[in-house]
């Protein structure tokens, strides 16, 4: 039955089931744009009907003219509403990750041959994001991310009732894109598993060693005179302390196995919290978990790598 319908009414079937995920930019044309009256449009038709009946009954020629003119405006408005989507090109511009329970942002890049106004981009029944496209416009839609993993938003609805609000033209886009959803960070500020490889203290600030020069900071009482940058002091009357960091020895290892007792999701949650705290504290941290052994590191890219490993734990490579 469904196959028969799809053969007979390809348009209808596309409307109901969508076109499937697409990769490249999409240009809206007549096969992709649907248009129907809005509820207000139906109301307007009722008003026009009342005006027509009144004109007939009272023999008001100008009443006929007004009614027909407004009917003409509404009909011509269909073309203008349709045109407001026509020729619009939409490209996938990636997605921003989110933590579970939060919302991920999907980005779409719109390009128009001319101004396209009062557009709305909507995910399911959420409130639409309103925007205009003069030439190029990037639009982000937030999609709730209830659980960790890859979030595929499905199709977005692009719609417009411009210029008259009597008709609504819409189109669906579904790109082959996904946002990474990190596990929801655990709640308790955790006790760091003291897992320095050589047992070194892993408290904040303890990352400073004495081997590799890592910059200057203001001198503080208690700093060793050996570390004062005397040459700088001679030039500028300021005491500065040379900072050194050790490559090894003062990094933390965030380890799956150290979180005993909890189930997998709880462990992922805890590890996520630890990654965030370690990053914020400026620590070097490594992550060890089944399937991953990420060497200690630091910085946004490192953090992302760790969080992604946590997000995709136990999931197939492409789902």
């Amino acid at each position: 039955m469904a196959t028969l319908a799809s053969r007979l009414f390809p348009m209808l079937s596309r409307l109901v089931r969508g076109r499937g995920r697409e990769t490249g930019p999409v240009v809206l044309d007549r096969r992709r744009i649907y248009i129907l009256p809005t509820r207000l449009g139906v109301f307007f038709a009722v008003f026009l009907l009342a005006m027509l009946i009144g004109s007939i009954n009272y023999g008001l020629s100008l009443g006929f003219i007004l009614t027909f003119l407004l009917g003409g405006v509404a009909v011509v408005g269909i073309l203008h509403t349709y045109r407001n989507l026509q020729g619009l090109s939409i490209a996938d511009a990636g997605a921003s990750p989110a933590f579970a329970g939060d919302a991920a942002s999907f980005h779409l890049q719109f390009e128009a041959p001319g101004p396209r106004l009062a557009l709305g981009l909507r995910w399911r029944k959420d409130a639409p994001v309103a925007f205009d496209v003069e030439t190029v416009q990037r639009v982000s839609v937030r999609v709730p991310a209830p659980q960790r993993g890859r979030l595929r938003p499905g199709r977005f609805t692009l719609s417009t009732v411009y210029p008259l609000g009597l008709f609504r033209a819409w189109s669906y886009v579904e790109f082959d894109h996904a946002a990474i959803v990190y596990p929801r960070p655990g709640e308790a500020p955790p006790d760091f598993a003291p897992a320095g490889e050589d047992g070194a203290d892993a408290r904040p600030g303890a990352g400073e060693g004495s081997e590799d020069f890592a910059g200057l900071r203001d001198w503080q009482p208690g700093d060793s005179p050996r570390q004062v940058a005397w040459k700088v002091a001679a030039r500028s009357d300021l005491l500065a302390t040379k900072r050194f960091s050790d490559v090894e020895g003062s990094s933390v290892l965030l380890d799956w196995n150290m979180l005993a007792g909890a189930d997998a999701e709880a462990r992922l949650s805890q590890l996520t919290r630890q990654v965030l705290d370690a990053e914020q504290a400026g620590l070097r941290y490594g992550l060890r978990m089944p399937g991953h052994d990420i060497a200690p590191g630091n910085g946004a890219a490192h953090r992302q790598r760790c969080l992604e490993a946590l997000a995709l734990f136990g999931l197939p490579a492409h789902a």
Partner: protein
Amino acid sequence: MPSRASFPPLPAGHWLFAGITLVLAPHALHLPPWLSAIALAMIAWRWAAAAGRLPLPGKWILVLLLAGSAAGILFEYRTLFGRDAGVAMLTLMLALKLLEMRSYRDAMLTVFLGYFLVITNFFYTQDIPLAVYLFAVVLVLTGALIALNHPASARRWRAPLQLSALLLAQAVPVMLLLFVLFPRLGGPLWGLPSDAFSAKSGLSETIAPGSISELVQSDAIAFRAQFEGAPPMPSSLYWRALVLESFDGRTWSRLRGRHGPEPTLETTGTPIAYSLTIEPHDKPWIFALEVPDPQALPPDSFLTRSLQLMANTPMQRLTRLNLSAYLDHRVAADATLPQLGHALQLPEQGNPQARELALRLRSEAGNDAEVVARALALFREQGYSYTLTPPLLGENSIDEFLFATRSGFCEHYASAFTFLMRAAGVPARIVAGYQGGEFNPAGGYFIVRQSDAHAWSEVWLDGRGWVRVDPTAAVSASRIQNGIASALAAGEPLPFLLRTDIAWLKQLRQQWDAVSTYWDLWVLGFDQEQQIGLFARLGLGIVSWRELVWGLAIGLGAVLGLIAAFTLWPGRRPAPDKVQALYLRFCAKLEKAGLARMPSEGPLDFAQRIRSLRPELADDADALVQRYVELRYGAHASGDMLKSFAAQVRRFKA
């Protein structure tokens, strides 16, 4: 509970409030002033609320306003229904709807209601100035729709106006097609409110001293007449409306009941063909020349036994009729004579002096024709004067007029003359109608106004039948030959339009009347008959409903196809030099700001240099350069893209 007015945001709100104010403005002419004032105050309140200066009223205030105003309307009109009270209620609803408006949906419905109120203006007048004005109102209301659906574009007042004008311009062909082809019905679908056609002036069913001189103060048009051949002299244009045969001593009225057949007439000469375009006057009589050709009566009309042409139903809309008339006629030799007793009837009492005079005329004259001639000579020679403002008359009105005041208007003369004839034993009756008319060379037709209203007499002469006698002509020949304005002394209270001393003004007025006559005929008077006539003239014959619907569908398809092609066509590939000229303008703007393009620098390199030197300009410049590259080298360059490129260059500020 007062609340803030959140929708619509003001730039869009200006459109809405202005549109509503404009649509209500013409109604101020006939609404009670207090209602206009309340409506205006409510609009002002809502406007101030949108500007954040006032809170919106709570529900109870609205209920009070509604109840109070509705009571006022009920008090004013004694009803809430019908035309006038209905319009008053709609006005009130619209103003209240504004105050209650909180959301996008409310605002949209308010605009719809505004459109609806446009149509109510047509109950009162449908002339060209009002039509032009209301078209402008529709332009603003449609601008309001656009502004509501894209409030940002309302920040520049031009944007909604331009789009609104474009939409309306594209809707005009659709409207024309529907107007011509939409099947018309012959009459109303259901009964009209009793006041739907009130305030129409015209002849009433009776004539008493003063009734016509009152009507003559109006320069409203009664009808227009166009002759197929050369028009007759104005002095022979006696447009008959009503024959009045019953007299009660003061008032002449129509005779009720049947009084035998009218004698068959012998007509001579060829009939003259003419058409009448009669303004709605809500009465059945048709202003035909004597004698209507019984073989060529207009549809839905009949001749009475006293040769009045009557329509079957009161004329409630502009009606165009084709008629033909024989100007010469006499009663057939072998005709059976009508019963003439009612044409001799007089009240038993009153006006003794007039009766005495009549008997004297009778005894001095040899026959009826001579009685008529002597009576007319009396009017001509005994110092009677013609005036719009005669003295008031008492109980014996004929006596007082004939022997004391000696000044009067046509109804005085007709009445006195007919009285004298009856008293002298000559069957006589009064005819009310119009006389003459102003020839309009611009349109080739006569304009007959209420000021041309006239009353005259007909007497029965053996062997000739009913003969027209106009006693006013005996007193003031100029009235009949040159119209009323020439017959009255300066200072008589004539309507402004009848003062003919300014030539260019008169010419302008006649041209305007010719235009509005075509408007009346082809726009306002376009009904079932006109539609059928138009199809016949186009050689389509009788067009059935089914054919009309097909015609409409095909026509609409073609028109919309054209508009779609015009709207949706991406436009031709723009000429390269146009694109280049715009790009150079962009470069010139940057050069002025100290950022000159190197001669060898390509657009993309230039954009990169802009980013490094003036990062705040980079986003705009990048988009602009990207579009430039697309237009020059892209495969899908279109006219639309050029337009937006031009806009980008225009807006760019270095």
